[in-house]
């Protein structure tokens, strides 16, 4: 016999199942199609006819020097801007959490402002800022220094996210922990190194992951701050798509997806290992 529905058993309502299913399809179908057709033995990536399995477009993508340079650029930018963003974010978070000073709410607001400013505005303003200040890297700046504009731009939009994530983590730090360490003889620095930093670690990892992903797939701001010699992966793919859609693009995108997935998986795993429930 069928049991009557309980108030929150949404999964047993057909309408709910449909909503769920459609959401999943819209979210993941394009990605799955993209991955599947990266193995399609056809000259056109947008071709919906399956012509047999091949990995030759991966080989082709890896052999494409411009694409590989774009990839190396993206990785360099992502790694550098992540390290700096997390460092700055952590400093900001600790500062905002630890100290009281005049106009603190204003400072907090300003820190998170880049999160809500439209990306296009950020892109334009950064481009103007760099050219006004004469910080525009020229064609003959040696690699990787020619990426410094983009790296700076990426830091400006990812560090507020880092600061926010770390700040949230600090919020549930038990201040008695810090006093207990001092009581046992620790100096300010030792408290930071031995107690506060381990507590912040999951926040730091989450912040790093977030910054890395934001940087890796940023298009708008990068587009405005990149020059002809400083093409990043998303910008390169965009220009390739404008030319023609080939399975090579599918292959390159699949590599990007897999890379992001692996990183996320590792970060989550690491977080679970180190971050036991923190009940003070």
């Amino acid at each position, binding site marked *: 016999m069928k049991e009557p529905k309980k108030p929150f058993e949404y999964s047993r309502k057909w309408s709910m199942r449909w909503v769920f299913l459609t959401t999943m399809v819209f979210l993941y179908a394009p990605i799955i199609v993209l991955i599947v057709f990266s193995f399609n033995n056809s000259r056109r990536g947008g071709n919906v006819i399956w012509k047999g399995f091949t990995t030759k477009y991966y080989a082709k993508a890896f052999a494409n020097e411009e694409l590989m340079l774009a990839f190396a650029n993206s990785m360099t930018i992502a790694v550098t801007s992540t390290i700096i963003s997390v460092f700055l974010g952590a400093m900001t978070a600790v500062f905002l959490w630890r100290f009281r000073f005049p106009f603190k709410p204003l400072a907090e607001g300003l820190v998170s402002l880049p999160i809500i400013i439209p990306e296009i505005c950020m892109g334009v303003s950064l481009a103007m800022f760099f050219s006004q200040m004469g910080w525009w890297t020229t064609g003959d700046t040696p690699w990787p220094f020619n990426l410094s504009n983009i790296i700076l731009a990426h830091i400006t939009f990812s560090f507020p996210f880092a600061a926010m994530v770390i700040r949230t983590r600090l919020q549930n730090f*038990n201040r*008695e*922990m810090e*006093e*207990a*360490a*001092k*009581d*046992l*003889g*620790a*100096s300010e620095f*030792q408290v930071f190194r*031995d*107690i506060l930093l*381990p*507590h912040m670690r999951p926040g730091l990892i989450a912040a790093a992951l977030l910054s890395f992903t934001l940087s890796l797939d940023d298009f708008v701001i990068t587009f405005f701050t990149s020059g002809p010699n400083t093409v990043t992966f998303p910008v390169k793919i965009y220009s390739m798509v404008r030319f023609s859609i080939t399975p090579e693009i599918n292959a390159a995108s699949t590599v990007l997806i897999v890379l992001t997935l692996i990183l996320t998986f590792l970060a989550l795993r690491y977080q679970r290992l*180190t971050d*036991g*429930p*923190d*009940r*003070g």
Partner: protein
Amino acid sequence: MDPTVDKLPENTHSKTILSLNAIGKRFGKVTALEDVSVDIKEGEIFALLGPSGCGKSTLLRIISGFETPSSGELLLDGQDMTRTAPNQRPVNMVFQSYAVFPHMSVADNVAYGLKMEKTPKDEITDRVNQALTQVHLQDFKDRMPDQLSGGQKQRVALARALVKQPRVLLLDEPLSALDAKLRDAMRLELVKLQESVGVTFIIVTHDQSEALAMADRVAVLESGRLRQVDTPSALYQKPVDAFVADFIGRVHTFNTQHISLDNGSVTALVDELDSITLPLTELPDGIQAGPQPESPAVIAFRPECVSVQLATATPPAPDAHIQFNGFLGDIAFQGQHSIVEVTRGDQQSVTAVVNHQELHTLQGQPLGTPVLASCAYSDLMLLPPA
């Protein structure tokens, strides 16, 4: 009562280890502590007792160095420590939340303080093992804190502080977070632990039964002021005022109207009662003879001193007992003794703690049976107002 008489047994606790001299602390407009002076003796369990918000934690934090007093000084072994940083004081604390470091194993938690002192590795291992054995956690060395119960975390916090061999160990509400059964066991265990390590303990608590059961001496704090510092029995038998009397156990109080002292005998005219001859030869501190002011001295007695009998039985000698005619109220059986309520119409009812024999004559009587409650003059206390 003479405050200079030392009620401690002669054998131990004679040397002063920690002196608080006129300590005061203000937080902005709030005065948390005012003129607190007390000497804590080496090897004793000293309890800071008082209602919530009276400044107990603040005093403990001043001793540990997390707060600096606004006035007064703090001497440890005769050395001024008022402004010494917390990590430089030979004093350790067990925090109310235990504050066990969640990312370190039990052994690492306990070893932390020794590492900060740069103790040699071998010595750290030995001392950590010894400390863990003292708190019965030797088998939990490699556990992480999230695998421990609340009681076990507290033991880690204890071991972590004791392993530093502090001159004074501070415990902030050490039992308040434990469940009732564990609390009673832990009370006893803390006392035993203190006996075996011999370190001076200062325990903060708002629970008077806890303070009386564990401490050698108790300081009663109220609104940042020390009301009385004494042994548990002296606090119970000779409270300095009505606040302490009521905070340590229960008392019935009656306002006096007039007090006279002649020929070494004190008589008081009391509300609701007649003139009473008190078991005193002189007036206690803070009480004036003559008509009483707006907040008058009070006559106080404890429920334990009240006896209850049927109104039909022979009453006790009227010139040596205060007597209340009333009616039998609820009886709460408590094992060793029972608590009997005597209602008196719209006047305040009188509670009596009675033994088995007394209970026997009252049991089976219907509610409202006329009874007589009485208390001997010799059990009365004359106290300044709260």
